[in-house]
């Protein structure tokens, strides 16, 4: 296993853990550094604040899924000692071959047994407590009734009569949806109510209020669809003898279903031996979900699909969930799990290795770009007209030339079809349109741009926001 400083930094939960781990390595806090005979286990003793040194290890028995262990009391995995061990390896410190300590060998064996057991269990059909599940689905149906009632109240009240206070009152009532296992629906309702509050939770200015009316109207339609589709889905599921979730559409996630990898695998939503290149990465606060959402935008180099990784870090446990970061290599994944959904599906994996990006990867990525705007636009429109679809789909497109028409920034394909650029309504990532004029002219023609689409309800126009450029030498990121 190739362990360089980049690997150690990525393994750390946060930048502080990386910093502290590096410091331990530099301070030579490791009394002993060892490697197992077969080279799959790094271990060492690190002098910490405890009386006895901590035994920490990095187990590469499964290279794409390393296991980090440490005898320190930290709740972070890997802790700073283990990260320090990785830094020692990356800095070229000498690791002597030694027998694996008994306590580690036991843990490895136990982990191996657990893994095998897990695998066996995953191969066998999982026993489901159908009575409990049916009870849960019935509760969800009751929750749907509550959502419908809240929605009708909101529509009767009118968008114009909403303000920060009423928004807070509705949010208070919406908390009950969580009791009915409808956390997704609760977040959808919050997406509506949060439109009426500014960053501090106060009323919006008159001008800002005007600007959100169309969006609010659209959100109501989305909630209405959620009620309708959600109810039909739950009723259908209740009648299904297996009570299985829908794997064709994203309705289960809309209601709040947290997909397990085994469920995705059982549904056949898994691809093997995939390579991914990251095109963009950003994190934003999602007030509606009460979470920090870290989104990686990747291109699947096998299928050309643009797919998303989403790391949700709840506000209340920000410290304990690993911070994701930009990734500048090719991710090699044995099993890539895909969530139900049609355009930019969410993906996850349980382990990965990496390699540097080569020119051939970029060339391959450019081949997947859409070149004919007419057919692409038709596809996009067909997608976004569905109320519960992702309204801001992402794709890679070939830009024959980028220019200006009547002061608007415009992309044009080889046939002269045009798309207008705008940052409006896409505030999760920083603005990017203005960066075009800071680019050298060679990057403004015959390039592959990764863009996010958005239909402006007020202007009634489909627009795009550039996120990155896939050039022949590198991926140029235009947003964070």
């Amino acid at each position: 296993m190739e362990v360089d400083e980049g690997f150690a930094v990525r393994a750390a939960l946060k930048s502080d853990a990386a910093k502290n781990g590096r410091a331990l390595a530099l301070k030579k806090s490791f009394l002993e550094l060892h490697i197992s005979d077969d080279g799959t286990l790094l271990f060492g003793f690190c002098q910490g604040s405890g009386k006895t040194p901590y035994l920490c290890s990095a187990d590469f028995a499964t290279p794409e899924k390393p296991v980090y262990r440490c005898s320190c009391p930290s709740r972070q995995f890997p802790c700073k000692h283990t990260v320090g061990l990785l830094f020692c390896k990356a800095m070229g410190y000498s690791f002597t071959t030694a027998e694996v300590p008994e306590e580690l060998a036991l843990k490895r064996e136990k982990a191996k047994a657990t893994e095998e057991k897990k695998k066996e269990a995953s191969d066998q059909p999982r026993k489901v407590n159908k009575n409990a599940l049916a009870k849960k689905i019935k509760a969800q149906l009751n929750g749907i009734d509550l959502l419908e009632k809240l929605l009708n109240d909101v529509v009767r009240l009118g968008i114009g009569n909403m303000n920060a206070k009423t928004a807070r009152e509705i949010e208070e009532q919406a908390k009950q949806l969580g009791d009915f296992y409808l956390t997704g629906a609760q977040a959808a309702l919050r997406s509506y109510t949060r439109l009426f509050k500014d960053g501090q939770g106060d009323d919006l200015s008159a001008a800002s209020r005007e600007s959100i009316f169309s969006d609010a109207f659209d959100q109501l339609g989305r909630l209405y669809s959620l009620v309708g589709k959600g109810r039909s889905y739950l009723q259908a599921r209740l009648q299904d003898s297996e009570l299985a979730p829908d794997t064709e559409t994203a309705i289960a996630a809309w209601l709040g279903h947290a997909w397990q990898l085994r469920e995705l695998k059982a549904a056949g939503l898994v691809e093997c031996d995939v390579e991914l290149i990251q095109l963009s990465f950003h994190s934003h606060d999602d007030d509606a979900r009460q979470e920090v959402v870290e989104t990686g935008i990747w291109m699947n180099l096998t299928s050309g699909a643009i797919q998303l990784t989403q790391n949700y870090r709840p506000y209340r446990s920000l410290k304990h969930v690993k911070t994701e970061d930009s990734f500048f290599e090719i991710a090699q994944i044995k099993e890539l799990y895909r969530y139900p959904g049609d355009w930019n599906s969410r993906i996850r994996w349980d382990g990965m290795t990496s390699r540097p990006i080569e020119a051939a990867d970029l060339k391959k990525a450019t081949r997947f770009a859409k070149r004919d705007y007419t057919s692409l636009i038709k596809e996009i429109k067909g997608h976004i007209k569905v109320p519960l679809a992702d309204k801001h789909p992402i794709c890679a497109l070939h830009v024959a030339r980028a220019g200006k028409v009547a002061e608007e920034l415009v992309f044009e394909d080889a046939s002269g079809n045009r798309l207008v650029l705008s940052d409006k309504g896409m505030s999760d990532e920083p603005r990017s349109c203005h960066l075009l004029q800071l680019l050298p002219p060679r990057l403004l023609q015959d390039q592959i741009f990764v863009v996010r689409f958005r239909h402006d309800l007020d202007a009634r126009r489909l627009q795009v926001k550039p996120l990155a450029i896939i050039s022949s030498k590198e991926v140029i990121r235009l947003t964070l």
Partner: protein
Amino acid sequence: MSIALLNQVYDESRRLAIAGSSVASGDFRLKKLIPALEQAGAKSAVFAKLAQTTKALVESTESTASTALLELGTFINSILYTQGETGIEGEWKPIDSIDLGLSKTQTSARLLKPLLEALTNKGSGRFEIIRSAHQQGLFQDLRLVRPALLALDDSYSEIADFVADEILPLYGPALVPELEAQFNPNGGRGHARRLLLMHKLAPELSRVHVRVALDQGDAEMRVAAIECLGNSPEDLPFLLDQRKARAKEVRRAAMISLSRMNVESAERALIQEIDGKDLDLAREALRTSQSAAVLATLLDRTRSQLNDLITSKSKTKTKGTSDKRIERFIQLLACLKGRADAQVESLHLEILKEIDPIRSLKGIPSGDDILHTLATNLASGSPVMKQALGKAHSAFGPAEMTSIFDAANEVWKPDAVFKEFSPYLVAFAKSGKKKGPDAQRGEAIATALSNSPSNRFLSHRHASFNFDNLSKKWLELSIQLELDDLITNLATLDKKLAQSALQNLFAKKIEAKTNSQDFWYLDRVLESMVAVEHPALVDSVIEAIKKLSTSPSHNGTWILRHVALLPPQEALPKLEALLPTLSGKIANSVIESVIALKQTRS
């Protein structure tokens, strides 16, 4: 498909959603659209369904209206999502690419996010993040251009000024279109910064904004705009007018801009200022004016004022009373500072001959104040003026000695300076608590020679004092007189001679008890050791780190400056061996420096 009809249905349903569904039942505007929808519905199933949904809403009751409105809203939104315009008709223009030459976008989000927040949010600790990012070259990333521009409005002015002075100029004239797009002449200080930056980067292009700022801006904006004027004859009437402005700063800025204009009316205006009550405000403008007429008037008035002071001694007031004539003479003299013209030279030499009568002038200000201004002028004047000042060193008081010593160093041979001025230093070293005039002069010389080494070696703030032109004898004398401050500061005069002296000094200071004063000396000694490339530098820095680790209460971050300057090949193994023995804050600080040093090596 009739888009207009669809848009009408959308507008009406949106209106009802805003008002609330309770008013939807029987809505006449929506009702009016039903026949047209039904007519279109005969040909299209979508319109038929739309007509049906619209009718359901119009005919709904209070209890069913909300559902009917949601049904219609969802349906019409879905249709309009497919009908959005996509392209744009019109003449194609290329993007005026201003290629800043930046394409570094491989900085990780973990690094960029806190920096973006520091540039765009509020709160403490942001300046350090921004400054450190600037040092690391992160601003080469084009994603940071706009946030940096927004930081011009930061309420913490240190950040806004730092961004305006250090960061944004990096992008060059290509940045002007962005600045132009953001510029608001009615804006506050941030927009004044934008104007000055535009003027700095592209003076011609910024003229139009300067005009607008003058017409519409507040006092702060107008001052900034006036500072940008003076390069075109068109500016003249306006600048002349601004001389009468109420705000002092506006008047001052207008005069400075007038001084850049080589036209008669501008000259006349400045000449009027010489005789007016705003002479103090006009000082900077008069100093920089290239006009012969202005200079001639200034010399004439100064000369006559001198004559008045010298010849009418009877008017001399007693100590402690105000004397407007002396005040005006000082103001006139101050307007000549920095000039080296022959006429200025000649006038100053004339004044120099009148030192004694001038010194005898009493009042507030007094003759001594005149002499101080005279010494300052001579020190910043022509070589002849500097020569004359050096020769007259004994005629001036201790307060002027720094200027005199500076001037002599510039124009005399090093040995001559040493011969003439070193006795003062000896007098200072041998003096007790009460110092006579010579010892005080020596103290001034010691102060000049012991300016903080960080000024000399690192930031060159004391660049006007030419230390390289000093005789090595100063170092010898300092060692002989045991003037530690001078030894550290003059070490570069004779690196070989300094090495053993510095080694001794270091040993003396490292053995001393650990108080802040000792650490301050250690800092100076190490700084000098860096400057003379002392062979024991690495070991000495390591000794100092060890000493710091035994004094946890002392903030030892100053040592990191020296660590950063160590030769990596020799220092890294020694530092890495030291790290395991360290603990606490100093350990973490040194680790950071070691990482940086490693990066330097790679």
